[in-house]
C-alpha cells in the first residue's frame, strides 16, 4: 500500500477522503439535530434506510484511508530504522484493517 499510495495519489486520496468524511459527519449531525433519535430502534431504522448503510461504509473506508496516509507520513518522518518502520507500518495496517472489518461487520449485521 505504501508503494501504490504515494506522492500525488496519496495527497489526492487524503484530501478527497477528508471532504467526504466532513460531508458525512455534518450531514449526520444535521440529521441528529432534526430527528433527535431517543431509542435504538429509531437509530437502527435510520442506518438501515435507503443509502445510509453504504454511505456509512464509505465514511469508515474514507476515514481509515485518510488515517493511513496521515499516520504513514508521521512514521516516515520519525521512524528511521527500516525494520522498526516496517513493523510499525505493518501494525498500523493491521490495526486499521481490524477497525475496518469491525465497522463492516456491525453495519452488515445491522
Amino acid at each position, binding site marked *: 500500500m505504501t508503494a501504490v499510495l504515494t506522492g*500525488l495519489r496519496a495527497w489526492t486520496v487524503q484530501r478527497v477522503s477528508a471532504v467526504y468524511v466532513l460531508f458525512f459527519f455534518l450531514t449526520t449531525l444535521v440529521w441528529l439535530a432534526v430527528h433527535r433519535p431517543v431509542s435504538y430502534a429509531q437509530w437502527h431504522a435510520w442506518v438501515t434506510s435507503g443509502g445510509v448503510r453504504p454511505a456509512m461504509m464509505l465514511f469508515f473506508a474514507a476515514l481509515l484511508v485518510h488515517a493511513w496516509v496521515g499516520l504513514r507520513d508521521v512514521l516516515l*518522518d520519525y521512524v528511521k530504522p527500516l525494520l522498526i518502520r516496517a513493523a510499525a507500518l505493518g501494525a498500523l495496517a493491521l490495526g486499521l484493517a481490524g477497525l475496518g472489518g469491525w465497522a463492516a461487520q456491525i453495519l452488515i449485521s445491522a
Partner: protein
Amino acid sequence: MKFLIYRYNPETGTKPHMQAYDVTLQHGDHMLLDALMRLREQDDSLAFRKSCREGVCGSDAMNINGRNWLACITPLASLKEPVTLRPLPSFPVIRDLVVDMTRFFRHYHAIRPYVIDDEPPPERERLQTPAERSELDGLYECILCACCTGFCPSYWWNPDRYLGPAALLQAMRFIADSRDRATAERLEFLDDAYRLFRCRSIMNCTEVCPKHLNPNRAIDRIRMRMLKHEI
C-alpha cells in the same frame, strides 16, 4: 551591544559552545553585519560568510534570535539583546556560523534549474508574452540563501530526500516557464513520497524568506499542476 554567538571549530577539537561578546558600535553601524564586522576586529577567529552587504547574494544567512534571516538587512535597532546568533539549523557546520551548503545545492541541481528545450533554436531569442513572463514573478527572485530550507521542519526530518522549499520554489520557476519543454518530466520527478510531498504546509519557509517570496504557494502550485497533468 551584547551578543551570544555559536562557536565551533572542528580543527581545535573543542565542543560547540555559545560565546558572549560585548561590541562597541560606531557611527554608521546600522545592520547586524556591521556589528559582526566590528566584532571581528575584536576577535578575528570568528567565521561567517558575507559578500554583497545588501541582501542580494544570500551569503550571510544565519539564525538570528531564533529566526533565519540575512545579517546584512537586519537592523540592529530591531534586535533584542543579547543577540543570539547560530548557524542555519540542520546544516552541517564547517566553522562557527559557516555551514556546508553541499546538500542544499545537490537538491537544487536535482530539479534541473535551467530551461530545457531540445527543439531547434530560433533565429533570435525564444520570446515570451508579458503574461507568460509574469508567471515567473515571485519565483525568479530567489537568491538561494537557504533561510527557508534551514527553517523547514520537514527538511530537518528528511534532509537527504526531501528537496526543501528553496529547491521546490526553483522547480516551480522552471515548470512555470513557457519556454521550457520538460514540464512532464519535471512533474514526474517530483511525484514520489519524499521530494515534494514531505511538505506539510507548516509555512516557516514563507515566514523567513528575506525576499518576501512564498515557497509554500509555489509548492501548492506544483501540486495543482501535477493534478491537472494527471487528469
